[in-house]
């Protein structure tokens, strides 16, 4: 799945990746896919939790070719 935008939050400590996600997602069209790269250990559970709290769609987690953790979020509204 190719994201519309990639947000590099590697090296950022929680809650910065989630804050960055919250700032960036409204900039995408509804239906748009944002990929957040985050190696903060809390990101794996906090990004899905944020999606649930904000009614956005958590699409899934993966790794980039370089092995960085990636989290895909689709804007629902």
């Amino acid at each position, binding site marked *: 799945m190719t994201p519309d935008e990639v947000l590099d939050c590697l090296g950022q*400590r*929680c*809650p910065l990746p*989630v*804050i960055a996600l*919250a*700032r960036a997602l409204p900039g995408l069209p509804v239906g748009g896919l944002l990929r957040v790269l985050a190696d*903060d*250990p*809390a990101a*794996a*559970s*906090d990004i*899905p*939790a*944020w999606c*649930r*709290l904000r009614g956005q769609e958590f699409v899934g987690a993966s790794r980039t070719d370089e092995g960085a953790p990636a989290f895909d979020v689709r804007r629902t509204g």
Partner: protein
Amino acid sequence: MAQPALAYLDAASAAPLHPAARTVIESLLGDAWVDPAKLYAPARRERLLLDRSREAVAAIVGARTEEVAFVASGTEACHLGVTGVLAGRRRAGGTFVHSTIEHSAVLHAAQAHEAAGGTTVPVPVDRLGNVDVEAFAKAVGGGGVAAAALISASHEVGTVQDVASAAAACADARVPLIVDAAQSLGHADVPAGWSVLTGSARKWGGPAGVGLLVVRSGVRYEPPRLPAAEPSLMLVAAAAAALIAAHDAAAAEDARLRPLVDRIRATVAATVPDVEIVGDAEKRLPHLVTFSCLYVDGEALLHGLDRAGFAVSSGSSCTSDTLRPSHVLEAMGVLSHGNVRVSLHRETTEADVDRFLAVLPDLVARLREEAGVTGL
């Protein structure tokens, strides 16, 4: 401005020493240096006191005196309990079933079991922290299971587990059930059906340095080759006195603290925007609550609360020495950053709770403003 007196609200880590425990320590301090293993009268008196302590604790947990042992900490009790049963039951199988929200002491024992070639089956919990009892039953009935573990109530979120159903499933499958009751003992009853029960004295107002390990007769338990150290008589007797006192007061304390936690849950939800109050609102320990504040740095929140005169705990990764978020919050799929855990005790007053609730919203608002996330 004068620094407000500290309100200690972290009983789930350690509760203030109960006056009954202090009295025992003070009375024994001059005499309890004697080695209880010797033949002479002072040693025999110590052993008698140790036996009485074991008897008293046994009566409270519903065990026989000889099934009760005291070890150096709650963590050690978990390590010994899990390791000892897995070793004793190795002919039955190499699988260890456990919930995903066990105390880290149980999870570390599980990791050690895996490292030694064993298998572990982690059983998930729902959003409120209730273990999936059907999955638990299925797992213990799967054959080749040496032991299963289910915490009596979560030390992080307070959700009381369905130990009775887990115990029934274990009985059907003839698998011993290990129950870490550290957060329940002295506060709430633990359902029967466990094969091994563990506890930690300082969580019930006893002194630090005493763990409880109860192993039912007939459970295939293999003690460590080199025996674990026993805590001093003075600490054991104090721990027993504190448990008796806590147990006697448990119903009254429940009636007193449960509404205060209800008030915290309702008020925080009403006065702090974007907060996730975690754990089962009804099926919970009387004295514990945790919540996560969106976009707030947990460490900054704890420091702010400390400056305001509140000692609380957190499941956020930035406040942990492992720099990982609480595995319990992760397992529940709830927000882990900006997390605060509040746990009340015998000395907590309504005024302490009200002051905490008055301070929190402005503190969170200020931290959000400083981070530039107000209205995000």
